[in-house]
């Protein structure tokens, strides 16, 4: 057991890869689902054990692939930040997979089922790899593994528009990944190393004349990663992709894919460039703050006028990512804590919302808001969970969304930018409007013919929704796992770099 314990970082990536190979050899969807479930239930335990190890030891866990010491070999370096994001991704995976069987069986043709789980596990392996690795180029490879799997998953949507959405995402995603690899290339030319810690060390002792390519690298990396995490105005691919993808895929991606990219942004800004270099030599903070606030408002306004509930939530995701990047850009203790906490909270809330909509689609065949009249009476538990998660998204006190927005507001006041605290509240009010539209239609209208046959979905679909909704309340009251860890992460990120 102790021998295995040393290898936990690599197991997180190897297990889903292994699962992908096994499911690729199968033809039966149910068996493939069982294997995906089995692998997925082990991963959060590994991630939690890593997080506890790191928090107890107070220093990062370093794993040398193939026994080659860094910076020559590839190093997996798990500190509190990775461990927390790994836990977020694995929890979302483990909670949503039980939902997949019925939902996928309904939305996909039977010969696609086994391949679907192969792609799902590849995507999961890629996302966990991005977060676990301490090597800049290795992160690019994992980024592409997860992206290629994601393009396939999106293209599996029932509507032919899914193909176009997938194509557009492929173009945008590849440009983003290529920008990232250009940035890594420039850093490699200047420093001669690819290990993130080693790059950070060597950037500390650069001559004055060498700064220009480093700044270009920072610009390329920022733009590339912001394309992947769908920061306004680089979010064009996201609404179509989320709307057209199968329900389960949308819920899974909303909770994981953008979060892995956010992690990469935090890592590049704080661990590699160091907050001082990144924020003093280029106006990154100002640009990110402006774009984040634009995302919070413009995407929320677009969401208010959307007729398709899934697309509405997709725009809401763009807005919520604005909150996370705002926290990153504030670059102080409270702001960064808020950004990291919101990464976790938003993953759980938005996954719950998309899963609930998936259940509605499962029963009624439509997610047009006009078709949802009276659905709250027909599917009481599903819609109750939806309302709880929606309240969390709005940031009502007592839900997890309140905690993250509270920290973000504190962070902007600490920074001396108190109007931003006001803007955070104002944009939350817009989310009241768009969430209110669905709730109004669902509860205060007479049920129409579209929903006459609707009832709560089977237990395997209902339980994940209820668990995530309960988590929205739980993490609004018990902040030990979220805020306390995030605060420790934020202080170590900010402290080690000044």
């Amino acid at each position, binding site marked *: 057991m102790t021998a295995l314990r040393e290898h936990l970082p690599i197991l997180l990536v190897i297990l889903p890869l292994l699962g992908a190979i096994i499911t690729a050899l199968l033809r039966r969807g149910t068996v493939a689902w069982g294997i995906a479930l089995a692998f997925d239930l082990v991963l959060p335990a590994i991630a939690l054990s890593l997080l506890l190890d790191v928090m107890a030891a107070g220093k990062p866990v370093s794993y040398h692939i193939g026994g080659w010491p860094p910076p020559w070999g590839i190093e997996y370096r798990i500190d509190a930040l990775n461990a927390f994001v790994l836990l977020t991704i694995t929890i979302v995976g483990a909670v949503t997979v039980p939902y997949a069987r019925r939902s996928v069986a309904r939305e996909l043709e039977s010969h696609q089922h086994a391949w679907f789980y192969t792609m799902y596990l590849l995507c999961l392996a890629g996302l966990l790899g991005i977060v676990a690795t301490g090597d800049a180029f290795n992160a690019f490879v994992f980024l592409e593994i997860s992206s290629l799997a994601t393009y396939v998953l999106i293209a599996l949507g029932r509507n032919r528009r899914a193909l176009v959405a997938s194509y557009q995402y492929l173009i945008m995603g590849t440009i983003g990944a*290529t920008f990232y690899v*250009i940035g890594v290339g420039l850093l*490699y030319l200047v420093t001669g190393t690819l290990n993130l810690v080693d790059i950070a060390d060597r950037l500390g002792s650069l001559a004055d004349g060498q700064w220009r390519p480093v700044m270009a690298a920072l610009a390329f990396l920022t733009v590339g990663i912001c394309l992947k995490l769908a920061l306004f105005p680089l979010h064009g691919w996201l609404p179509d992709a989320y709307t057209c993808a199968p329900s389960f895929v949308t819920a899974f991606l909303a909770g994981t894919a953008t979060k892995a990219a956010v992690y990469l942004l935090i890592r590049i800004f704080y661990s590699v460039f160091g907050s001082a270099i990144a924020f003093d030599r280029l106006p990154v903070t100002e640009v990110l703050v402006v774009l984040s606030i634009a995302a919070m408002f413009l995407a929320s306004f677009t969401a208010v006028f959307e007729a398709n509930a899934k697309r509405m939530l997709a725009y809401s995701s763009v807005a919520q990512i604005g909150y996370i990047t705002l926290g990153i850009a504030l670059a102080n203790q409270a702001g960064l804590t808020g950004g990291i906490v919101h990464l976790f909270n938003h993953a759980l809330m938005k996954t719950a919302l998309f899963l609930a909509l998936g259940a509605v689609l499962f029963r009624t065949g439509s997610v047009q808001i006009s078709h949802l009249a009276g659905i709250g009476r027909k599917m009481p538990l599903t819609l109750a969970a939806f309302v709880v998660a929606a309240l969390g998204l709005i940031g009502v006190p007592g839900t997890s969304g309140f905690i993250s927005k509270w920290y973000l507001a504190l962070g902007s006041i600490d920074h001396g930018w108190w109007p931003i605290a006001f803007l955070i509240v104002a944009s939350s009010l817009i989310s009241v409007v768009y969430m209110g539209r669905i709730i109004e239609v669902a509860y205060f209208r007479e049920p129409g013919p579209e929903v006459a046959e609707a009832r709560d979905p089977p237990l395997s679909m209902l339980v994940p929704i209820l668990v995530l909704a309960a988590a929205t309340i739980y993490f609004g009251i018990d902040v030990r796992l979220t805020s306390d860890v995030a605060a420790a992460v934020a202080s170590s990120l900010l402290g080690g770099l000044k």
Partner: protein
Amino acid sequence: MTDGIAGLIAHYNYVVTIFLMVAGLYIVIARGNMIKRLIGLSLFQTSVYLLYIGPGKIVGGTAPIIDPAYKVYSNPLPHVLILTAIVVGVATLALGLAIVVRIKESYGTIEEDEISSRDSAGAP
């Protein structure tokens, strides 16, 4: 001015790299034909291979074989990295083309403006 031109000629590999990079990106943005956009994307990715490989070469350097006869080696790491990147590029291009085939099957066209007009027309 002459310094600038001399610099450009001395670093002609970078000039080629940047030209290919910008040309590829331009095709991706400016064209509406899905195949042409994929070609542009491929060009854009390929230019990055040059960005890595070019500086790895040292004039007069040999392959890194430990032998007393050779003193100057080229850096082998960029080649290994780019070998991986080529695989990624091929996979991306293959998947992109596969999706375009499916789009052609279901829409009957691969021009983006025609596809969006068919989508907004409603019934599939």
